[in-house]
C-alpha cells in the first residue's frame, strides 16, 4: 500500500504511523458528560467501506494527514493535510 502525501508524493506505507478514525472530536473539557467522554475515548465505528483516518508521515515530512481509505480494498480515495482539514472546519463554523 502506498499513500500519496500531499507534500512528498506517493510513499511506502512503512513511512507512516497509523492513529485511527479521524472523526472523533474531543468534548469541551470539564463540561462534558462522562458518557460523552466515554464515547470519545472508547467508542469507534468499524465500517466495511470508506473511512477517514489519521496517519502520520513519521519518516517523511512529519505531517499529520487525513486519509480516506476503503477498509475492504485498501483503495485510497483522497489524502489531505490534517492542518488544512482543521482550518477548513474552523472556517466553516
Amino acid at each position: 500500500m502506498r499513500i500519496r502525501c500531499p507534500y512528498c508524493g506517493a510513499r511506502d506505507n512503512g513511512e507512516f504511523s497509523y492513529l485511527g478514525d479521524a472523526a472523533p472530536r474531543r468534548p469541551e473539557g470539564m463540561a462534558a458528560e462522562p458518557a460523552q467522554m466515554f464515547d470519545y475515548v472508547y467508542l469507534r465505528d468499524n465500517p466495511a467501506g470508506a473511512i477517514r483516518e489519521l496517519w502520520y508521515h513519521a519518516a517523511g515530512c512529519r505531517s499529520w494527514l487525513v486519509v480516506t481509505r476503503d477498509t475492504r480494498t485498501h483503495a485510497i480515495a483522497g489524502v489531505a493535510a490534517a492542518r488544512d482539514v482543521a482550518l477548513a472546519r474552523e472556517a466553516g463554523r
Partner: protein
Amino acid sequence: MPETEVAARPASSAWQPRSPWEGHARPGRHGRAEGAPGLILQPRGRSGLALLIAAPGRDTELGNRLAAHLGWSLPEPGRTRIAGERGLIWAAPGQWLALAEAPEDLRELDTLLDGVAAVTDQSDGRAVVRVSGGRAREALAKGVTVDLHPRAFGPGRTAVTGIAHIGAQLWQRDAEPTYDIAVARSFAGSFWDWLTAASAEFGYVVEPGPRA
C-alpha cells in the same frame, strides 16, 4: 586515517573536531575491481547546515527576509534552490534546511530571522555524503523507496525518507546523477555500511574525506 596524520594534530587541546565519516570512509577503490567505478562516494566536510522553522503564518515574511538579505527564495515542497554549496532545501511544511560552505556563514540567520523563524544549527548534527556516478541510482534503489528515475526525480528535487530504516534527507544536485544524502550524525557508521554494501557490486571510489 594514517596514524601520522592524527599525531600531527596540535597538542594544545584534547578536543578536536572529527568528521562523522572518520574511521568509516577509507579512501580508494573498493568493491568490484574490474572496469570503471560505478559510484564515487565523497564524505562531505563541516559545511553549514541549519533548520529554519517558520513561525505560524510567517512563511512569507521569512521568504522576504531571506530574499532581501541573501538573495535566496524559498523552494516549493520537494524542491531545492542551491547555487554551488549555498541555498535552501525544503524539509517539511514551513521548514527548510539552509546550506552554506561553513557553519559560520549561517550565524547571521539568528538575528536576521528573529521573530519569523526558529533557527537550529545542524552543522554538527547531520553527516552528509555526496554520491555520484553512472550506477548511483541502481545502488540507492536498494534502500530508497522513493522513485529516483529521471522521469520522477531530477536535479533540484529533494526527499525526506528512510534509507535502510535510517532517517535521511537526500537531494539531487545534477543529472550525472549526483546526490547529497544527510543522516543524523550518530547514524553515519550504520549508513556508511549500508551504502558501501549497496555499491560494492558496481565498484566504487571513496574520495579523501575532510579532517573535520
